[in-house]
């Protein structure tokens, strides 16, 4: 082992417009998840910068980053990542809880969001009592709870069957029509084809 530096991302220059639906496609290890974590303010670059609404996120404090994640960004994961001790309603209300929204408001909005993704009758179910597709819809409702401008999906259809995957993409499309910016990472060309724009990545670089 030498001192050679390994870059997860290198020479990336990517502009995403407000209201865009973009898919980033590439094999595993191509750096697409790292890029997504940078955009989603889960991580900050060691060199270079990520701007959201013209703000350099690398210069923000921990708390400020948490605030951006909470208010501006909704995250959807491949593994759903629901809190398993909480039921669907509480999971959806959790980001609003961290945002300091009043309890009644929070639960009312969470209920509406769950109804919007077709889970109005399953709000008191725990994640363990739901199918993968249902869990991912709960996760989408959770991502929307603070009404973010940007929705980020890290392989959002990676753990569900094709039909459910399409249903999830329908929802994301709908969110895009509402004016939200959608950024999805996938290795499924069919899923990527539904986005307005596709970017390919390999070895930490964005191609074409």
């Amino acid at each position: 082992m030498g001192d050679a530096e390994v870059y997860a991302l290198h020479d990336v220059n990517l502009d995403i417009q407000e209201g865009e639906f973009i898919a980033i496609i590439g094999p595993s290890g191509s750096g697409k998840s790292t890029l997504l974590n940078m955009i989603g303010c889960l991580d900050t670059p060691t060199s270079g910068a990520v701007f959201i609404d013209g703000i350099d996120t690398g210069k923000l404090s921990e708390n400020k980053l948490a605030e951006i994640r909470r208010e501006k960004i909704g995250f959807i994961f491949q593994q759903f990542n629901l809190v398993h001790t909480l039921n669907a309603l509480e999971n959806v209300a959790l980001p609003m809880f961290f945002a300091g929204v009043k309890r009644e408001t929070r639960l009312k909005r969470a209920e509406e969001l769950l109804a919007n993704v077709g889970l109005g009758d399953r709000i008191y179910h725990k994640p363990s009592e739901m199918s993968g597709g249902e869990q991912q819809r709960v996760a989408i409702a959770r991502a929307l709870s603070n009404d973010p401008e940007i929705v980020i999906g890290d392989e959002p259809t990676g753990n569900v069957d094709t039909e459910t995957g399409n249903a999830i993409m329908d929802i994301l499309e709908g969110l895009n029509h509402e004016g939200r910016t959608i950024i999805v990472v996938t290795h499924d060309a069919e899923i990527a084809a539904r986005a307005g724009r596709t970017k390919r990545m390999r070895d930490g670089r964005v191609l074409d």
Partner: protein
Amino acid sequence: MRDKFLLAYRSIRERRTRSILTVLGIAVGIAAIVSLMSVGYGMEEAITGELTGMADMISVMPGKITGHAYVELGSFTDRDVKDLQRIGGIKDITAMTYDAAEVEYRNERSPIFIIGGDTKELGIFYVEPVGIKEGRWLRENDFKGCVIGDRVANDFFDEVIHVNDKLIINGEKFIVVGIFEKASTMYASDVDPHIFLTLHASKEALQTNEIKYIMVRVYDIDEAEEIAEEIKEAINDNHGLDDFAFAMTIGSAIEQIGTVFNIIRGLLVGIAAIALVVASIGIMNTMLMSVMERTHEIGVMKAIGAKSSDVLSLFLLESSMVSLVGGVVGCVLGVVAAKVISLVAGTAMGIEFSAVVKPEVLLGGMAVAMVVGVLSGFYPARKASRMSPVEAVRYE
């Protein structure tokens, strides 16, 4: 805030068995503190409580205390007693002879200590607080009568002694005219194992004029120390010695007992503190395991917008809730244990006392539980709050 409690409660319930064990760990530590303190206070109160009733007494002995042992230097004379009667502020004086004698009952012999003294004075000092169970107290002209303590009547001879039974003391016949009640803690050693005679009879039986013990009762407890000094001086003058007489007020005895009990309580608390340290390591361990297990969950919470301080407070809340419950359970267990211990120990030692549960001990127990919970929860909570969201989310 209510929701934070709910969140914390959910994750405590999620790990039910472990949480219950942690609660028990703290509870046992707190229970140890509460019960040991309460038993200690109970014992102290049982002893000093009786002594307080005797706070107006000064006991005078012909000897001195060197180190921890009492060394008898001789005996008092009638002149000593007369001199004491001239000291102001004294209500009663009783001079006693005191020596071992050979006592025979139904052909069985046993050495027993005899106390002789003025019947009226002895009556004030012993009969009033202890009481006569059978028969009556001595009269001035009971030259051949005696009153015996509970242990003399029941334990010293194979056969139980009753009123009107005959005892032979150093070869002289006496009739038992009365038997004392079983004395409580403070009087037990003075009354239970002794035979009481009139002064005249005891001088005959013991073949002595020596006065071995003087009990003085004062009018004003506040003057007791001063009077004790005067007594010492008066008697020392008579005998031409610097420290011939030893006069101790019961008040100073109470103080000494208090000091002893403070030391005992300190030791007990020290032992209980070890239990608490063990318990707090238990909490820390539980919380650390919980943090490790929930690394992923912490990452998710941060990814959806939780601040580090949110995570910190959630975990701290969890450990303080566990320790609060532990504290409450510990206080309840401690009180129950204190009652049981005082009952069992009291019966075993033949002392009657009940544990004294002081509110400040309970409050202190709760406070200690909370402090332990917060302190031992802090390190794991901080560890949780400092996790990087990317790594935590990736962790499975």
